[in-house]
């Protein structure tokens, strides 16, 4: 083996070991599964065997065949292709929800935790207020106002997930801001904004990441539920939630049409939540 590959191998190994140290073997498997889903969703146009909406009337509600590895649904659409294409909104949705929620939550939390006093009170009470609205309810409200679709649902859920991330981040910032290194920077005369952006937020990022990961799983379930209710992705479009809403299949006992999307939802939520839990456990361990 040449020196170069030796070196790169060692680097690679090092990174993987670092990840392994943080989330363990189970976390690596779970994270690997999520990575696999993301790659599959990205490559859906290339790897899906047929169009997700192509109807094969000769093979309606078929079981696994060579042509349709996971069978077809009651309209004769290929389940594997629909799962692959459906992975896109199913994963993009929660990403959107949590991305927007985090972008709002972290600055709010930093503002509250850094300023303290009245500003903290106002921000915290505002967060309590938003907490009071269940996400699904807000999403239904958004759908009534703007019509069904991924964006109204995602934005409504983003608002309801925001306080979950903000509250944890704020308490972490409160803990961190009294440490001497932050006091030293204050005494130096560094602006509050610079201290927050360059020092405070990076130093609580581990907590933010674990909270983001756990929330991602919940958001995925919520969006699937909204799709199931016909408020998020509308047929003929597909995500995993839409695919579970197939009463014909259930009535006729062709459970495999519903089984696969359900299985994907369960596995992806479990994986994401497991990684998040491992991250947060690791943070608590490091704090001790």
């Amino acid at each position, binding site marked *: 083996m040449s020196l170069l590959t030796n070196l790169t191998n060692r680097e690679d190994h090092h990174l993987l070991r670092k990840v392994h140290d943080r989330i363990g073997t189970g976390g690596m498997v779970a994270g690997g599964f999520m990575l696999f889903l993301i790659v599959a969703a990205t490559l859906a146009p290339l790897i899906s065997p047929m169009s997700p909406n192509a109807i094969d009337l000769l093979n309606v509600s078929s079981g696994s065949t060579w042509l349709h590895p996971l069978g077809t649904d009651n309209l004769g659409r290929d389940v594997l292709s629909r799962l692959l294409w459906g992975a896109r909104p199913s994963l993009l949705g929660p990403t959107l929800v949590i991305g927007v929620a985090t972008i709002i939550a972290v600055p709010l939390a930093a503002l509250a935790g850094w300023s303290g006093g009245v500003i903290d009170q106002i921000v915290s009470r505002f967060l309590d207020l938003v907490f009071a609205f269940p996400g699904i309810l807000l999403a239904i409200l958004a759908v009534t106002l703007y019509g069904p679709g991924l964006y109204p649902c995602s934005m409504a859920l983003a608002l309801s997930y925001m306080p979950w991330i903000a509250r944890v981040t704020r308490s972490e910032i409160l803990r961190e801001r009294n440490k001497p290194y932050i006091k030293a920077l204050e005494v*130096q005369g*560094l602006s509050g904004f610079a201290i927050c952006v360059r020092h405070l937020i990076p130093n609580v990022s581990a907590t933010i990441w674990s909270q983001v990961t756990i929330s991602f799983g919940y958001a995925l379930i919520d969006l699937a539920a909204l799709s199931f209710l016909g408020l998020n992705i509308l047929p003929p479009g597909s995500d995993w939630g839409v695919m579970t809403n197939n009463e014909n299949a259930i009535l006729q006992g062709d459970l495999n049409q519903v089984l696969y999307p359900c299985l994907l939802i369960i596995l992806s939520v479990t994986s994401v939540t497991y990684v998040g839990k491992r991250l947060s456990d690791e943070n608590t361990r490091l704090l001790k």
Partner: protein
Amino acid sequence: MGDAVHSAETDHVRRLNGPAVEVAGLRKVFRVSGGVGGRRHRDFVAVEGASFSLEQGHSLGIVGESGSGKTTIARMLVGIDTASGGSIRVAGRDRSTPAKSTSERRRRGSEMQIVFQDPYTSLDPRQSINRCINEVLKLHRTMTENERRQRIIELLDQVGLTEHQGLVLPKNLSGGQRQRVAIARALAAEPAVLVLDEAVSALDVSIQAQIINLLNDIRERTNMAYIFISHNLAVVRQVTDQTLVLRKGVVVEQGDTEKILDAPENDYTKLLLASVPEPGWKPRRVRADAALSRESEI
């Protein structure tokens, strides 16, 4: 420590008209919540009427037992806490009230710096030593990147750290080394006054001695004034020329360090001195003295 490297240009000697620090009637009252439902408050006086002044190039020790208000004075001086009363002037400018603008805060930062007790939490764990000092230099001085790099090497050398140690994260340094970094970071702002809040207390004895020598060196070279807060009287004797003895927030004695430590007038100072273990030291005598001072209080 490579002293030969230092030329006159690298040490920035400040010349001020008048004292470096002037404190008059400094007072700090904390509101402690107590009683049912925390509705009733009770005032706790942490510092009551402390007054002192400190000349350029001199060093003032603040001693007293835990909870005597030493650290509260330090925190008020650097602006972490706001004084409840009295006035503070540093380098001829008033800082009794909190800084209103960022530029005022920065200016105060260039007048007075602080080194904290715990070297393990004094540095940003995610920032390399070089970046840590670079940030301070960027804040206070207009320098090119090259000049800053040069200055970082100088500062590290001044506190006895190598160029290589500047590349690492704090976790790769020992407690003593981290405290040196904290001192270098404070020096980077080239303050007129440096507050050392129990800055050597957490270090083991040989490291303490090194840091004390280092501080004495820096003072001679830069004419910087020190406020040295410690419960360790032996260290105070080595570093300071004036001392202030605090007890329950009140200054019970102040004057020349030699005089206070050799011939204390106040009973509390005597007790403090008698509490230091030395040959022939008898704990029983201290306890008797303590009982005596409690009686006299009543």
